[in-house]
């Protein structure tokens, strides 16, 4: 319940954060702290330096960016959930943010922190994957933009380098296309046993899976089946194709595969009816 000792620096700007991250081998970025501090309290994580990015100005916003909506990395889940621009153009992101953790978590946790942590049981990474979102990253070599599909590289691993700072998430305006995030969990505050994001697209749908492998996944088999004209129910039968879900106290891999099929069908029915 008490983290191991660490050094602490407050970043004044994104560039400052990038610089500070280079000052120690085990430096970690601190935003809302709701992925990192729970691990540090149990001493599962022991950074030598925490770079607090929480006071960098102008990283918490939701802005119109043409055919996209841009979300500052420090935007809290609560603010994402209640944002009118997102409600209008990309409801999937706001309704999903409202399902993360509990109200207290949503009052502190940030979209950037959640995405950068790269937990396959997290909800927003799956949604961003299904949306083909873009992620803006600042590093020692300047800024670059990554596709969500290239971002999640392994269990708790992302394309972020040790001095990289995720600064913005850009999601497409859906223009009224239906979408859904179906989250199955035992208790309201729990991580998803399995979660499914579905976004209507070109007559078919893009489908993301939470907690069905070491990273958030796209259900390519389902997407292909839909593109080939399969009904949602038939397409959903391919939900577990190519997945490698974990077995833990929330459910075995076998159960998760079966659950994914049910939840994909339900998500598709909701998204395609909308």
């Amino acid at each position: 319940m008490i983290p191991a000792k660490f050094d602490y620096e407050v970043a004044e700007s994104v560039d400052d954060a990038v610089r500070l991250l280079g000052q120690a081998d085990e430096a970690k970025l601190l935003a809302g702290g709701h992925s990192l501090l729970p691990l540090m309290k149990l001493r599962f994580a022991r950074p030598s330096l925490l770079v607090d990015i929480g006071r960098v100005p102008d990283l918490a916003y939701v802005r119109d960016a043409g055919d996209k909506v841009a979300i500052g990395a420090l935007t809290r889940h609560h603010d994402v959930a209640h944002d009118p621009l997102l409600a209008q153009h990309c409801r999937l992101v706001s309704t999903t943010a409202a399902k993360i953790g509990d109200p207290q978590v949503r009052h502190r946790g940030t979209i950037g922190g959640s995405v950068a942590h790269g937990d396959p049981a997290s909800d927003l990474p799956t949604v961003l994957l299904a949306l083909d979102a873009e992620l803006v990253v600042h590093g020692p070599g300047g800024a670059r933009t990554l596709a969500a599909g290239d971002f999640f590289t392994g269990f708790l691993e992302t394309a972020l380098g040790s001095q990289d700072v995720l600064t913005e998430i850009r999601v497409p305006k859906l223009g009224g296309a239906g979408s859904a995030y179906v989250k199955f969990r035992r208790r309201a505050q729990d991580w998803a046993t399995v979660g499914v994001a579905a976004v209507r697209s070109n007559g078919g749908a893009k489908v993301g899976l939470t907690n069905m492998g070491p990273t958030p996944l796209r259900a390519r088999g389902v997407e292909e089946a839909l593109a080939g004209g399969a009904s949602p129910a038939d397409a959903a039968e391919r939900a577990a194709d190519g997945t490698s879900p974990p077995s833990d106290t929330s459910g075995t891999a076998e159960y998760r595969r079966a659950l994914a099929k049910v939840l994909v069908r339900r998500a598709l029915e909701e998204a395609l009816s909308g």
Partner: protein
Amino acid sequence: MRRIALTVNGTRRDAEVEPRQLLVYFLRETLGLTGTNVGCDTSSCGSCTVLVDGESVKSCTMLAVQADGRELTTIEGLAQNGSLHPVQQAFHEAHGLQCGYCTPGMVLAAVSLLAENPSPSEDEIRLALEGNLCRCTGYHNIVKAVQQAAGMGVSV
């Protein structure tokens, strides 16, 4: 050590803190505000809930240094001029507490809910309290208390 300054229950507090000090221990051990309880070590139980700038936060999942410059309300700061806050009063009248350990966090979670949604349905209340665990009441009377407080037109 780092110097921080914040407002707690309307009073400015200055302190030197170790960066690793969790906000809940800062409140309890540095400021002596022991009304905020610790019930778990995994950010699950919500016993340590306080208001930061008017919103519910688990003070076990925030460093004291992160509270620098913020405005905090703990359970000790809720009653005004000797009168219980309407949520406290409703918990009393509806028997929304037994052992009392989860109560400060539960009350503040309810205050935060009602600030955001002044007339929640029963389902909305239950969902809004998802991050606060109580082992005594079975939640029935907690939900009733929040309904009662909502009926009284509570605001922070």
